[in-house]
């Protein structure tokens, strides 16, 4: 711990003196004793939206802290192109590749080709079914579970719920598992309505649906919307129906805009659970760095989520994601994939 603080200080000092040099490169094991010669690639499947933007910034910051050369390949939801991009990265002679999302079917052979070429590979939120490739993931199950625990703490084990869900989307399916378990364990919880859509703008479409659901089911007092776009839509509908006092919304994920929505006066959105996407990005790079340095990594690197309540945001006057990180240190940094030589991004 102490050493890491020192490193952080050193990082801050390096930044303060204007030298963008990696922190004490000579302290790092090979190949990071000459980090500028280390080339890594991020091959993305999904990139549009706040979450992916923030993930990218985490990857960039951790790479900068290490001093390595980062190349970003963006396939924009084209599975075939993403596989080609892995091959491009191999041809480019990179030392490590981070695969961010994608389809198992298309990425499995591509990832295997990279491993065969002697390249270290880390996968984020995509299962490439390869023992040599550790999987970084945010625990979607835990996200939903923590939010539901909070709902039970606030409302007891008997409440009437509306549930927003679109099946077939992997993270939402994993979140759904938690909901099904909680319902099973608490027969007092009744789900009277399930709805949801990914028509974009999602918040607007979900708001339209939620309006009719609230009209048809006036007994609902808890809305479980385990995705922030869903929660935003439900909140619009609750506001429009004038039910802010009667309904509590529990969700997952967080962004600056979400913080503002949760903090509006009389907001029905009382709690969300989130993993900082930027931390997930940092963890992905650190995992890769550990592999490059020849250290052991876990096969599943899980970044733990954090509960964020409306009360906490109000008490600490949190306005945006940066302030959230300052006030909630476990949101700013996850003690995952850490070694004593690992430099952290300056904060």
């Amino acid at each position, binding site marked *: 711990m102490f050493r890491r603080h020192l490193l952080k200080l050193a990082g801050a000092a390096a930044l303060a003196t204007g030298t963008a040099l990696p922190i004490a490169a000579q302290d790092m094991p090979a190949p990071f004793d000459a980090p500028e010669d280390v080339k890594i690639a991020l091959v993305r499947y999904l*990139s*549009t*939206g*706040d979450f992916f*933007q923030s993930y990218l910034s985490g990857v960039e910051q951790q790479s900068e802290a290490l001093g390595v050369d980062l190349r970003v390949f963006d396939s924009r939801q084209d599975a075939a192109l993403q596989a080609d991009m892995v091959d491009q990265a191999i041809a480019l002679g990179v030392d490590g590749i981070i695969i961010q999302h994608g389809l198992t079917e298309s990425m499995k052979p591509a990832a295997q080709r990279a491993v065969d070429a002697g390249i270290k590979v880390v996968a984020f939120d995509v299962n490439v079914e390869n023992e040599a490739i550790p999987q970084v993931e945010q625990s979607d199950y835990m996200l939903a579970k923590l939010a539901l625990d909070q709902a039970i703490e606030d409302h007891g084990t008997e409440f009437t719920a509306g549930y927003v869900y*679109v099946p077939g989307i992997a993270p939402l399916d994993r979140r759904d598992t938690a909901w099904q378990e909680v319902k099973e364990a608490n027969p007092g919880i009744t789900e009277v*309505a*399930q*709805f*949801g*859509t*990914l*028509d*974009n*703008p*999602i*918040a*607007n*479409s979900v*708001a*339209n*649906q939620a*309006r*009719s*659901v609230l*009209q*048809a089911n*006036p007994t609902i007092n808890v809305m479980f919307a385990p995705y922030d776009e869903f929660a*935003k839509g439900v909140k*619009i509908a609750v*506001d*429009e129906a*004038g039910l802010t006092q009667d309904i509590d919304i529990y969700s997952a994920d967080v*962004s*600056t*805009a979400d*913080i*503002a*929505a949760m903090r509006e006066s009389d907001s029905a959105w009382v709690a969300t659970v989130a993993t900082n996407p930027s931390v997930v990005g940092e963890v992905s790079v650190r995992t890769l760095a550990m592999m490059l340095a020849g250290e052991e990594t876990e096969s599943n690197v899980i970044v733990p989520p954090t509960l964020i309540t409306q009360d906490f945001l109000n008490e600490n006057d949190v*306005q*945006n*994601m*940066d302030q959230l990180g300052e006030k909630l240190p476990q949101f700013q940094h996850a003690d995952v994939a850490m070694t004593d030589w690992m430099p952290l991004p300056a904060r």
Partner: protein
Amino acid sequence: MGNERLLNFAIKYGFLILLAGLILYFSLAAPGFASPRSAVFVLQSVAITGILALGVTCTLVVDGFDLSIGAVATSALMLSAYAMVVLELSAGMAIVLCLLMGAAVGLVNGLLIVKFRVPDLLATLGMMFLLIGLQRIPTQGNSIATGMSLPDGSTAEGTFSSTFLWLGRHRLDFFLENLVPLPVVVFLLIAVGIWLFLGFTRQGRLMYAIGSNERAAGLVGTPVSRYKIMAYMISGVMASVGGVLLAARLGRGDIASGTNLLLDSVAAALIGFAVLGAARPNAFGTATGALFVGILLQGLTMMNAPYYTQDFVKGAVLVIALVFTFYLSSRRGVGGH
């Protein structure tokens, strides 16, 4: 002859009867459907796509097509948010900027089509991609909200002004207190406006003339190019109005491609062909078409139907409407245009 009259009746009123039947069915089957509040939020849910659909109707009238409306709407959404949150302009300025942007996009679309002879679908398709990319450039792909960090490291201090949010959220008293949201009023005003314009003004009728036979209209001295450009400008402005209302409802600048807005509004306009057996684009039909889809979706949601049934139902309605328009009308001998 009885058959013929039945057919004519079916073409003319079939769709409206179907609509009435649906309302009756949902009133009986879904608790809470038959109430003034529920009627109002059906209207609210279709207000924005309806406004876009009315815009695209104008381009359909001149035998064109505007694929960029969804992207124009989301660009207006981002632009209004950017103007208020980052540039800290007033609500009025933000709205003016959005309308100008819509008109400018329409003008460019029109010029591409008329002057540069780019086919309408291709020109507006290009514009769609251009705008989807452009709206992300100023914020580097992030959504816009108060308190967001800007690229230069500072924090955005501006807020959505309450006047602006009022546009999307205020409710007028109408029989019941706080009943009718402003977007619905805007939608109805625009619907009446476009209906009067297309059906009862010289300009509107000339636009129909251009749509049915461009060369003939040109030969009798209609400034075809000018009218076509005007149609795209109307479409662009309508789309930006829709985007402004969307921003006012959401209260943030959301990154979105607007593809669903495009598809829903085009569907509404095409369903509109079938209303009253018009077999051509018309404002009344478009508004009814939007309402039809809205009622179906709200009713299904209230009955807990899963989301994928909604796309299915939307598609089915569209197909039935197109059959009404093209098959039945051609049998009647006045089909097509």
